């Protein structure tokens, strides 16, 4: 089955996606590949608003029936919003990973790091198969 990789997002090798918002903040979630590999998600822990995140810091946890997995911050910055709905409906990460399953919004600190373009992420998935 082919996994979705939207063209308007950027990606990490740890399977997070990053959406640039018009106000300069970024929205972060996990990719379709990640949710598919994890299986049915039953528990999601997202960071508190105002928490400062370092680049690559483990900042959220997603647990499926099978396994727990850390989510790493793809940027450095401050959490300005988190998806409160996920605590009651973790399955949104399965059903709509790039939309209703968003995890947090972050105000960048400093310059945005280099992330993977959609084609690079696709290539990365292909190589790690």
């Amino acid at each position: 089955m082919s996994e979705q990789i939207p063209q308007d997002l950027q990606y990490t090798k740890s399977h997070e996606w990053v959406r640039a918002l018009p106000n300069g903040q970024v929205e972060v979630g996990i990719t379709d590949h990640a949710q598919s590999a994890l299986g049915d998600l039953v528990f999601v822990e997202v960071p508190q608003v105002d928490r400062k995140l370092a680049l690559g810091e483990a900042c959220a946890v997603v647990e499926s029936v099978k396994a727990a997995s850390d989510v790493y911050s793809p940027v450095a910055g401050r959490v300005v919003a988190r998806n409160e709905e996920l605590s009651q409906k973790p399955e949104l990460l399965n059903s709509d990973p790039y939309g209703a399953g968003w995890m947090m919004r972050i105000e960048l600190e400093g310059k945005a790091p280099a992330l993977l373009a959609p084609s690079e992420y696709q290539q990365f998935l292909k190589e790690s198969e």
Partner: protein
Amino acid sequence: MGLKTPLYDTHVSAHAKIVDFGGWDMPLSYGSQIEEHHAVRRDAGIFDVSHMCVIDLSGARTREFLRRLLANDVGRLTVHGRALYSCMLLPTGGVIDDLIAYFLTESWFRLVVNAGTRPKDLAWIREHAAPFGVDVRERSDLAILAVQGPTARKKTVALLTAAHRATALDIERFAAAAVDSWFVARTGYTGEDGFEIMLPGTDAAETWRALVAQGARPAGLGARDTLRLEAGMNLYGNDMDETRHPLESGLAWTVAFEPAERDFIGREALARARASAGERLVGLVLEERGVLRSHQVVSATDAAAGAAPLGEVTSGTFSPTLNRAIALARLAPGSATRVLVDIRGKPHAARVVKPPFVRNGKPLIDIQ
């Protein structure tokens, strides 16, 4: 590339996620394992469990041999077709495997053992069968389909002729019968009613399709694990193994100490273990959000800093029926009713309960 059951291609064409299980390429799920779980609790699911190993034992002294080999007593099997769950033990009392024994005729018993333990089981059984002149035959020609759930039997017998249907519906719980070319057992690993059908591997794919057409939903190993754990059933390798005996694995009920003169392998060790309070396997229900997993450490709620933990989780998961994390855990002797489980460095409150958690679609544990 692992071993494949006769249904491998069927799973792949149903877009199953395939994983290695004991050297076999098996379906983990066909989409949502939680939906598969609910299908079994509410209607019917179908599992390919052909990786499990069917062993036929034959010879005049088969019953005598099994009374030596197994911790449970096949002397209790007096009616043809009846089944018995038992552990097969080392002299130390450690569990080599758990299995089901079916009494078919006085000179023919059938065992079904786990996939991951197949080689060592066969070697052990052959070694001990020889002095009894019992013939040991692995039936790798057979596939096993488990059809489980409240409507599983109805859906299965719909495939049979009227005469065979009556035979199949007459099978009592934990018993089996030959039905045409099938061997049908009313057993399972889900806590629901249903059948486990052993049939020629060459017929497996067609029968699978027919059962799916009847409305049995394909379910994988993921759902099988959450179902068995809700049902309070042990998984070999997690909840017991060669280093653990049945009395500390929640399986005391499967050890037949009576009659006292039956000299089964492991008896002496178990008799010694029985004389003192040892560790025990209990159920846990997590009272907070999170998921219990095997090897998480369990401590007393009032434990002083640096105190030894009470034990650890042997199998943990998220229970789709209870919408809570549940687990089996092996704890030191004592009567703790509440404990703390370390989940990624943070203590989480859990309640100690007596499994099973769910049976026949109904929660047996109060969830506040």
